[in-house]
């Protein structure tokens, strides 16, 4: 809320302030809620500081920029020479997220338009609640669905030996991200003032013309924000991709290749490493990379959406 209007009435002489018990309680509460208010900032900084602290040893030691980002060889436990290249892991994350977005973007935008512009009353309420419930399904359940339901379906349908691959994880992640993107996109459409629609309809435009020529251009930034948050969600998803990708290090050449994601690598290997070892520190370094990338995605999404409010 814009709280410039909620300031305690000004123009009253300070001598009116009664320095009694209520006044002190008021001040104490103000300080307490301020501490609560800055806690989010403290935690974000804390996250960055603590994962950097654990990954620091690797960054100043074994870390080699070229190897880390451009070598596909992730062999942290090799007997001869350990290599820490995350290129294949990036490729795994990117391929799965890319396929997921290919599915989720058209479906979530289509659904958002249908809910916001074409449905009303009970249907609309029902669809909104359904979408909200779908968004609540935990990621480990999605991973289990990929493992136990999608896997046999893919093996049978496409006659491939393994059903845990880019296709499986992409579809799962797409179904997972779509409801969240739908809600955000629907909010963006709802934020377009009704008078825009009425003006266009008064000119004789059909519903679809109103949507296409008026509503979508007006909601453009909000929709872009929805897509970006979906990408961020897909990029950072852990349990579902751990269970549905097949978890083998590969630069995929088809959707039927098994891959391994950045997030899943941390989840699978952290438990087996000794605290402070190069492998352990390398996993934290991947964490720093994930943190920075999602931070940038969220920042851009925020700026894009804010742009629409200013405009």
């Amino acid at each position, binding site marked *: 809320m814009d709280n410039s209007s*909620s300031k305690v009435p000004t123009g009253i002489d300070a001598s009116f302030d009664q320095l009694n018990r209520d006044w002190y309680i008021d001040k104490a509460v103000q300080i307490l809620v301020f501490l609560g*208010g800055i806690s*989010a900032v403290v935690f974000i900084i804390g996250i960055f500081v*603590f994962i950097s602290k654990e990954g620091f040893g690797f960054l100043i030691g074994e870390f080699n920029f070229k190897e880390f980002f451009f070598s596909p060889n992730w062999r942290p436990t090799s007997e001869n020479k350990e290599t820490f290249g995350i290129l294949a892991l990036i490729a795994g994350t990117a391929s799965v997220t890319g396929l997921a977005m290919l599915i989720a973007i058209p479906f979530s935008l*289509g659904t958002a338009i249908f809910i916001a512009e074409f449905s009303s009353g009970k249907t609309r309420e029902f669809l909104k609640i359904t979408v909200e419930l779908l968004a609540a399904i935990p990621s480990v359940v999605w991973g289990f669905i990929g493992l136990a339901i999608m896997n046999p379906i893919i093996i049978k349908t496409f006659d491939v030996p393994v059903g845990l691959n880019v296709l499986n994880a992409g579809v799962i992640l797409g179904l997972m991200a779509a409801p969240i993107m739908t809600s955000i996109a629907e909010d963006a459409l709802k934020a377009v003032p009704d008078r825009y629609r009425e003006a266009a309809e008064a000119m004789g435009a059909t519903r679809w013309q109103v949507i296409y020529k008026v509503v979508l251009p007006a909601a453009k930034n909000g929709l872009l924000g929805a897509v970006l948050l979906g990408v961020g969600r897909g990029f950072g998803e852990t349990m579902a991709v751990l269970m549905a990708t097949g978890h083998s290090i590969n630069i995929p050449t088809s959707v039927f290749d098994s891959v391994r994601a950045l*997030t899943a690598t*941390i989840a699978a290997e952290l438990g087996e490493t000794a605290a402070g070892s190069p492998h352990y520190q390398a996993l934290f370094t991947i964490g720093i990379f994930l*943190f920075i990338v999602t931070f940038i995605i*969220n920042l851009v999404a925020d700026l894009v959406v804010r742009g629409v409010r200013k405009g």
Partner: protein
Amino acid sequence: MFEATRLNRKNETRQKLFRLGLGAMTGLLILPVVLILSTLIYKGAPVISFEFLFTGPTKGMTAGGIFPALLGTVLLVMVALIASVPLGIAAAIYLSEYASDNWFTRAINLAIINLAGVPSIVHALFGVGAFVIFFKFGTSILAASLTLAIMTLPVVIVATRESLQAVPMAFREACWNMGATRWQTIRRVVLPNAVTGILTGVILEVSRTAGETAPIMFTGAAFFLPLLPQGVFDQTMALSLHLFVVSTQVPGMPENLPFGVALVLISMVLLMNSLSIALRMYLRGKKKW
């Protein structure tokens, strides 16, 4: 009076086609999930019984129930709520009642968005670095719950802030005019009018916390424990992690058992969310202003 021209008819047809197409997309988004959920129920329901819910796993987890995991999840959620609900409500009160629209508030908002957007596994790394190692809680319920609390803090903040802002400004102004302090106004007027909205947020947080897996994997949840936890410095089993374990880590697992675990977990989560939605609708119906 007006004859539809060819252009009118063309536009009309196009509109109908788009409507149909978008409707079909909506259906295609929802239908697979409905089919998946039906499969979960079909395969999982036969497993669920009183014994399944209230006894521990036996025979290397290939038989028996899920009681320690269920209890562990309840404990994790409770400790996480104790930490995050007061903090989240305080943050929301600050943002709604005190903060002005400046760069500092924008930084807080950005931090909240990021807290919600940072990958869960990064939260796990933070939990390991901060609570397990730095604060020396070890892998324990306390470390896992605090990690979960920080991760789900945005849920409480956002829901509380929204319901505080829904209280009309006039209510506050009326109270200030009576000479009440800011806190008295918040405590006696704003919070009572927002309490149901805050509750919907808390219930949503319960649902989120119960479903998370990655943040607790290395901070306090264990694959299998023969004993129930005795305090917050013990490790615990958890339902979400248990689903991961029985579906990937145990050879010779009977096919239906993981379905049963998945069904219990998803029922719990969806029940919480439905409760929150129902409360919200009740609140909308009762709204006085």
